[in-house]
């Protein structure tokens, strides 16, 4: 049987890059094509990068021409502070709509689709259950932009799954992600000298490690799992303990007019979006048992994730940036990949993994 031919959306995003890197290690994957509006920010060996606009107008041609059978839709914006609302809407809602239009075009070869969604689709409030299962409906209509756009995205996913019963459609809903490299409003709040909280509230938090995020995406693709899965580390811990694990005191904001009180923080560059303020009030637990029952094993618990995050942060504050300082050079990449002069397909840089040396 021929290997997989994978299309990744959002190659230049944190998740797109990581998933592409991980898929490159899989010998069963023949072709990896990554779409994005910007050039990738991580080093890639054999992933083909295609520049598109954010709503993928050329997508159906690519799917057809490259006979794509697997789509990893990682280009969904969860961090509402990272861009304008309009751009987020274009990327999340319009992008997903066009992606599924292309994937369901007549003669489409797509057989597996995995979508990286978020537990923000559940919302959170006082009346909600302590754990959301994959079947739990949200109790009130979404209030924030991210939640609204994720709900629209999931609607397209559902429609696509119903219209294309021969395709394995997997919707992964990730809990709050932390880890050594990812930056989110929560990770930024935890890097402050004092961690913002809401007075009188100490909600339960759940986290998933960035490695477990990538591993779970690969896992569902590898095992052709279909359906909705929550992805979150075991255990929940109160926000005060999250701060305590990071070795920091909490700084309570008033419980009334909290949005107004968080304004000075925004001026300092730490924006607490509405969906995070809701979390700081009510917290959220998601039931992670379905994916575990299908054989997935986590590497980190919620508390373990917080510790991994803070240890990486301490290391970085001591020795400086440990991130890969890679810059995509189109011409150099083209040379290494396509020039007849290149005899071995080593990665572009010479810093190959020391463990593969003879």
């Amino acid at each position, binding site marked *: 049987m021929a290997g997989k031919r994978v299309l990744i959306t959002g190659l230049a995003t944190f998740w797109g890059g*990581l998933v592409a*890197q*991980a898929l490159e*290690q899989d010998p069963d994957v023949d072709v990896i094509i990554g779409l994005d509006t910007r050039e990738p920010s991580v080093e890639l060996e054999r992933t083909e990068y295609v520049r598109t606009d954010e709503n993928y107008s050329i997508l159906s041609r690519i799917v057809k021409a490259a006979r794509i059978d697997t789509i990893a839709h990682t280009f969904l914006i969860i961090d509402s502070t990272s861009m304008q609302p309009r751009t987020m809407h274009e990327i999340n809602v319009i992008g997903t709509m066009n992606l599924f239009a292309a994937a369901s075009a007549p003669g489409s070869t797509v057989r597996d689709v995995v979508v990286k969604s978020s537990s923000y689709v559940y919302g959170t*409030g*006082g*009346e*909600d*259950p*302590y*754990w959301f*299962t994959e079947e*739990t409906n949200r109790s009130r209509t979404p209030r924030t932009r991210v939640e609204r756009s994720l709900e629209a995205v999931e609607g397209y996913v559902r429609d696509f799954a119903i219209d294309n019963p021969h395709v394995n459609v997997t919707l992964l809903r990730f809990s709050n992600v932390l880890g050594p490299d990812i930056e989110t409003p929560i990770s930024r709040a935890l890097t402050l000298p004092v961690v913002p909280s*809401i*007075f*009188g*509230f*100490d909600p*339960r938090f759940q986290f998933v490690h960035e*490695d*477990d995020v*990538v*591993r779970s995406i*690969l896992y569902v693709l590898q095992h052709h799992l279909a359906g909705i899965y929550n992805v979150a580390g*075991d*255990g*929940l*811990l*109160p926000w*005060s*303990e999250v701060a*305590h*694990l990071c070795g920091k005191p909490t700084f309570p904001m008033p*419980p009334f007019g909290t949005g107004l009180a968080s304004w000075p923080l925004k001026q300092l560059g730490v924006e607490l979006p509405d969906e995070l303020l809701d979390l700081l*009030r*009510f917290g959220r*637990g998601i039931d992670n048992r379905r994916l575990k029952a299908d054989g997935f*094993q*986590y*590497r*980190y*618990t919620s*508390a*373990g994730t*917080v*510790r991994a995050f803070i*240890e990486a942060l301490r*290391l970085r504050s001591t*020795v400086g940036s*440990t*991130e*890969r*300082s890679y810059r995509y050079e189109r011409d150099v990449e083209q040379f290494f990949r396509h020039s007849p002069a290149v005899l071995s397909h080593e990665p572009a840089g010479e*810093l190959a*993994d*020391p*463990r593969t040396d003879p």
Partner: protein
Amino acid sequence: MSDADEPTPTVADAEVLDAAAIDAMLLGETTPSYLPVPDPRGRADDNDVELDDPRMGDVDEWGRSESIRSLTRKIYDPIYKHWFRAEWEGLEKIPTDGGALLVANHAAALPSDAPVIMHGIETELERPVYGLADALFKTMPVVGTLWSRAGGVVAHPDNAYRLLREQGQLVLVFPEGSKGPGKTYTQRYRLRRFGRGGYVEIAMRAGVPIIPIAVVGAEESMPIVWKSTALAKATGLPYFPVTANQLLFGPLLGGLAYFPAKFKLKVLDPVSFDVPPDQERYSKSRVMEESERIREQIQSALYDMLRERRSVWFG
């Protein structure tokens, strides 16, 4: 709390890494851990490993904290013993293990029955009780957090199912909801509607018995003289009472200080349902019928207890 007993794996790990590995690490050239390469710590995907869970506090996944619970027990015990002088009958009907749904009548402007029932069972039977309450509590700053640390859980069918069916716990629920405590003194010991029978459906789905409890004394501990509908609407509270306690002790102290009414609690015979658990839905007529029967049992037990009661304060 001290950090002294925290493991420090980074230091230990760093000692065994050679300089080249550290360089590689700093350059970001270590293979990410999700790749299928042998992990230096000997972890593999296919064997079950006990994950490291560096917790620092004692707050569990329901939001309860054992240290806060034992503290509140210590503070509340004299009130239970000497103020309300709670007296139980039929405690042996409550199972010592496995899930069961405790159902009781609900009264007093600031309900005094919930802590009496929970504290009584927890100390006499040494079993935790999870008290279900309106989500309103969770939305109140400080109160909501303390309530949750002390053992309160938002009344949601999913929460009740998880506690009863999956964790085999005792769960306490007041089917009258806020209509019980929100009634005026003239209506005392007359049970309100038992919701829409949702508690029966939960017990059926969880496959646990319902144990009715009749409580006498709560009504007189903080009776409502008058209610303001307008203020209730304005504050968003289910009812806005003026209590006899407030008339006597002033609005603030009277809002918290109970009268020393004598508490008597009677555990009635457990009710089991011969229906299979985990069904999508149960016959609504059956649910309502069972709910009404349980309500009547508690109501007639209350009348019996009141017939025998000689004094509100001495029982």
